[in-house]
């Protein structure tokens, strides 16, 4: 409070008058488009320096050659041809990269569907059933709890729960529901999907919740007054208006799951293939061009998926 007083005291009357006269003249000289460029500029520079330029390097390196210990800056398609090795020869069987992407996409669709279902209802509850803003905030913060621990700790924490001698299995065996512990609870597709859903539902909740709180309550009342059932209101009013949130949440979840290798690795016992794991194995073997080629392939595929999704909903228009 004292500080604000100080600031108010500081500028001399001369200065204030000076700026008043200078400002309109300057603004007249700057075109509106220049100003909007100026506003977008800092973000654009950050984007350029930390995303676009590195990306260009990745693409360039993906066409280089390599040996055991260094990159050879000569043009080579080896990173790509090695990656698609046997894809034609092995038909109708899938080659390594084909099988890997089928598996990755399968996990991706499963996680997307489940996070969308859970995320939608959590957001619905927060937006329409929780009246106080404080509670809304508090409850959304609860959704971030899975991020408070490291991956390694999380993995170690799943073993006592889902493991062969874990809580779930011993509970089921003792209650007489099963005779043998269920092996598929841990280090399986089930545990991978479980962990990913546990982690990433939050990314669905936030954008959908954001779309939902902005729905004009009078629209819902109008639907009710017009005799719509709860289900009809949901399908015809709420879902269409929450669409941008759903698409944004879906983009978050899909891009993260497509590139994930840590959670899939840890929860899948390192035995489940993923696009990210191929890159990791290559990088660990110092085969950077091959890793870069795989990164480019992953980027193209993810980009195609997102393009398809933004075809369904024009996010720019909706926002």
């Amino acid at each position, binding site marked *: 409070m*004292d*500080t604000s007083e*100080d*600031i108010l005291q*500081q500028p001399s009357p001369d200065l204030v008058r000076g700026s008043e006269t200078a400002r309109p003249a300057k603004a007249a000289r700057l075109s509106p488009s220049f100003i909007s460029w100026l506003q977008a500029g800092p973000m654009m520079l950050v984007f350029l320096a930390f995303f676009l330029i590195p990306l260009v390097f990745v693409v360039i390196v993906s066409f280089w050659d390599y040996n*055991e*210990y*260094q990159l050879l800056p000569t043009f080579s398609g080896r990173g790509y041809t*090695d990656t698609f*090795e046997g894809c034609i020869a092995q038909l109708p069987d899938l080659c*390594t990269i084909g*099988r*890997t992407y089928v*598996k990755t996409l399968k996990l991706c669709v499963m996680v997307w569907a489940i996070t969308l279902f859970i995320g939608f209802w959590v957001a619905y509850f927060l937006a329409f059933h929780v009246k106080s803003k404080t509670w809304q905030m508090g409850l959304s913060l609860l959704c971030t709890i899975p991020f408070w621990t490291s991956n*390694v700790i999380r*993995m*170690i924490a799943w*073993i*006592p729960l889902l*493991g*062969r*001698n*874990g809580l779930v299995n011993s509970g089921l065996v003792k209650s007489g529901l099963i005779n043998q512990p269920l*092996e598929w609870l*841990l*280090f399986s597709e089930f545990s991978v999907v479980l962990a990913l859903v546990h982690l990433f539902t939050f990314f669905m909740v936030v954008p959908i919740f954001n779309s939902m709180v902005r729905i004009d309550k009078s629209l819902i009342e109008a639907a009710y007054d017009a005799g719509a059932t709860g289900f009809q209101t949901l399908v015809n009013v709420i879902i269409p208006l929450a669409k941008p949130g759903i698409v944004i949440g879906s983009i978050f979840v899909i891009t993260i799951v497509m590139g994930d290798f840590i959670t899939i690795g840890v929860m899948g*016992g*390192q*035995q*489940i*293939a993923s696009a990210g*794991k*191929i890159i990791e*194995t*290559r*990088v*660990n*073997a*110092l*085969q950077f061009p091959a890793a870069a080629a795989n990164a480019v392939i992953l980027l193209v595929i993810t980009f195609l998926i997102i393009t398809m999704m933004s075809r369904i909903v024009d996010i720019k228009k909706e926002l």
Partner: protein
Amino acid sequence: MTETTRKTGVSRRTLLKSTAGLAGLAAGSGAITGFPYVMSTEPKVLRYLGTAVNEGDDISKQCLKDTGIKIEYITATTDDVTKRVMTQPNSFDVLDTEYFSLKKLVPSGNILALDSKKIKEFDNITPVFTKGETPGGKKIGSQGTAPWKVLYLEGKDSKTFSKTATEFVTLIPTVYNADTLGIRPDIIKRPISSWAELLNPEFKGKASILNIPSIGIMDAAMVVEATGKYKYADKGNMTKEEIDLTMKVMTEAKKAGQFRAFWKDFNESVNLMASGETVIQSMWSPAVTKVRSMGIACTFQPLKEGYRSWASGFCVSKGVSGPKLDWAYEFVNWFLSGYAGAYLNRQGYYSAVLSTAKANMEPYEWAYWMEGKPAEKDIKAPDGSLLEKAGAVRDGGSYEDRMGGVACWNAVMDENDYMVRKWNEFIAA
């Protein structure tokens, strides 16, 4: 504070300015007031890049006490250590790494060989490294990247390994061990004596190997040989056909659900074993000890086909010269002088200079860890926790028996690129 500001008429801005000036002055003088005794000499600091094996806090503390050299650890996984040497050679001074990565590191020119004449204890380094035999004269298996194949360079800046002894040493040996399978005898309840048991359907869903392709495939090769399916000329340097054959065996086992999970991290291996998720897996000696210290039966099982061994040592970054290089020699000499060796021996590893380590251990400790004799007293870890009760015998017995039983060494193959591709295929199968 604002009260006084108003009274004295000092504006917030000038106050900030003068404070900043004062702070700057204080910071500037800090270098002088902070270290009044070392104004003429720089503080001795070495950045030490390595895996966690050798990087004990006790070791760095003792080193500072004995030599005045402050060690700053940079800890990374085996793969990341290599990656860092290749991409950021100026980010470390001393490198502690495994011999098998030398095939990549030496041609890169990013590391500097050390001069054996400046290493006081060099002539006392165990013949395991220099001759490929135990002190008792047992020949050690030489398949893979055995240390004596890559110990010397032809010249100071040479990129060729010398077959005969020269004074240019790629890595000054520090620590090594003989690895085998860890088992849960309380669950398996029968003797295990062969690598073939790793893929025995009896342990379906309860086996594990390392998630490092170059090491995982060696374990698989031990299994293939043990089952009598194939005999490799060199398990550490397979041909493409041999890689295909080994991976086929692995793929079949994976599809049949033999493996519970692959592990990469020390704690992962401990948890898998302790929780009973796995009952047989490739393991490191201290991990077995850790499981045992949790009160769970676990044996580092000697097998008739022998051990898969690994070894690591010190070199420096190519950017190290002048006084820093002298400190590096001082540090390496200190490391071989006994304290660190005894510390590593007590963890179940082996030190490169046995005589100095022995001088720093109690006779009963030496008898237990190195001679394979029953423990006269309780055996304690370096941190003082109880490892074994009196009367226990080390798995695999004496140094002679364990190191003499080594069949192959961790390696990087000539067909490494092909092997990595096949590994990805194996994971996708």
